């Protein structure tokens, strides 16, 4: 067993520096690497390019990094729900590359799987296609999109073991499973870290080979963005 366990978040993120490109898992606030985001705030690294489907809310998730102006560029599919984000974007302080969600996921997956680029129909005929190569397959135009090239991928899982194997819960799998192994170094934070051998190999969602470092997060708030309920 190759042991991927590191002591804590400080050790895991120790070599993240200014101006790096970082992928962060999560959809909305669901499945975001809360402990790592808090550590990025504490380290106060600046000039980051962040690849993440959303940008958090004003006071949680990536919104915390935006508040401290640590992000230069965001690559996301949807950035509503964050007033500070909108302000920085409209004033030009923040560079934003909006990418269709399926393309964003596939750009992660392509990086993970060693595919340099791919064609997709998403965005053809729109602003997204500007400057991109177009090719027709089976009579339908597609645009060429490239795999991401990031320094770090930070993902969050429900359970993990010391070998770096990951299991997700519910819809918190989202981008986390696509980003593991999609950057030079992948860091996984998990709610529960167990010794190798305790997770059933049949139930692993992401094999440990894609993960370089793993640690158990100190605490999880797991904030709910839209609490919708029905009455009994």
């Amino acid at each position: 067993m190759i042991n991927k366990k590191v002591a804590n978040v400080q050790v895991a993120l120790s070599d993240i520096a200014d101006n790096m490109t970082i992928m962060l898992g999560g959809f909305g606030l669901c499945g975001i690497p809360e402990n790592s985001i808090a550590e990025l705030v504490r380290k106060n690294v600046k000039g980051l390019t962040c690849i993440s489907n959303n940008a958090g809310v004003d006071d949680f998730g990536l919104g915390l990094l935006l508040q401290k102006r640590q992000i230069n560029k965001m690559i996301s599919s949807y950035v509503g729900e964050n007033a500070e984000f909108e302000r920085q974007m409209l004033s030009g302080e923040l560079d934003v590359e909006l990418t269709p969600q399926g393309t964003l996921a596939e750009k992660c997956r392509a990086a993970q799987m060693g595919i340099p680029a791919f064609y997709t129909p998403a965005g053809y005929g729109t602003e997204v296609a500007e400057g991109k190569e177009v090719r027709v397959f089976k009579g339908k135009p597609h645009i060429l999109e490239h795999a991401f090239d990031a320094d770090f991928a930070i993902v969050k899982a429900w359970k993990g073991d010391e070998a770096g194997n990951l299991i997700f819960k519910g819809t918190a799998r989202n981008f986390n499973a696509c980003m593991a192994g999609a950057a030079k170094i992948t860091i996984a934070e998990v709610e529960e870290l167990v010794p190798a051998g305790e997770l059933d190999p049949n139930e692993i969602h992401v094999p440990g080979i894609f993960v370089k470092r793993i640690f158990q997060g100190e605490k999880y708030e797991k904030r709910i963005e839209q609490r919708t309920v029905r009455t009994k």
Partner: protein
Amino acid sequence: MLDKIGIAKRIAKELQDGFYVNLGIGIPTLVANYVPQGMNVEFQSENGVLGMGPFPFEGEEDADLINAGKQTITTLKGASFFDSATSFGMIRGKHVDLTILGAMEVSESGDIANWKIPGKMVKGMGGAMDLVASAENIIVAMMHVNKIGESKILKECSLPLTGVKCVKKIVTELAVMEVTDKGIKLLERAPGVSVEDIIKATEVTLLIEGDIPEMILD
């Protein structure tokens, strides 16, 4: 004239047994409440769940279980979870049978705009561009006119496009319309709405053949 629930009810009539369906945010989400009895459909939410169920009972919300609108949900028997790349594989690979989404504008040729108002609102396209580029069966649920009474069905969209030549059907508070090679064809009118009312509210010239029946909702 229909309200939002009426629009959702009319769209629910487009569902077919065995359909996998992706619902957008807003009016489309309401369609899930009006699945005809005895019909089996499964709702896909692009953040990674098939077999989406209703909202949870109070106290049973789970932060790890949300839909694409970030609302807490539940799952039904037979549900599954998957990652975002797999989710859009289902969409791009045409495994999802029907996509229902909202729009700010739709053009005569079936172009759709629903993600950006330059200088005003830029929230992003989310999964809408992937959905409209790949789905073969796209129904738009929207109000016929905007807040100042202007037609949202236009010769050409004025807002940045989400996709081109993709919308198949439009359901509004006034009418059901089909996008054809020759233009937009009026299929049905809402209860209490005349063909003239619909013509007046629509910028494009509608194709009207014979008597236009009133929608049947229940």
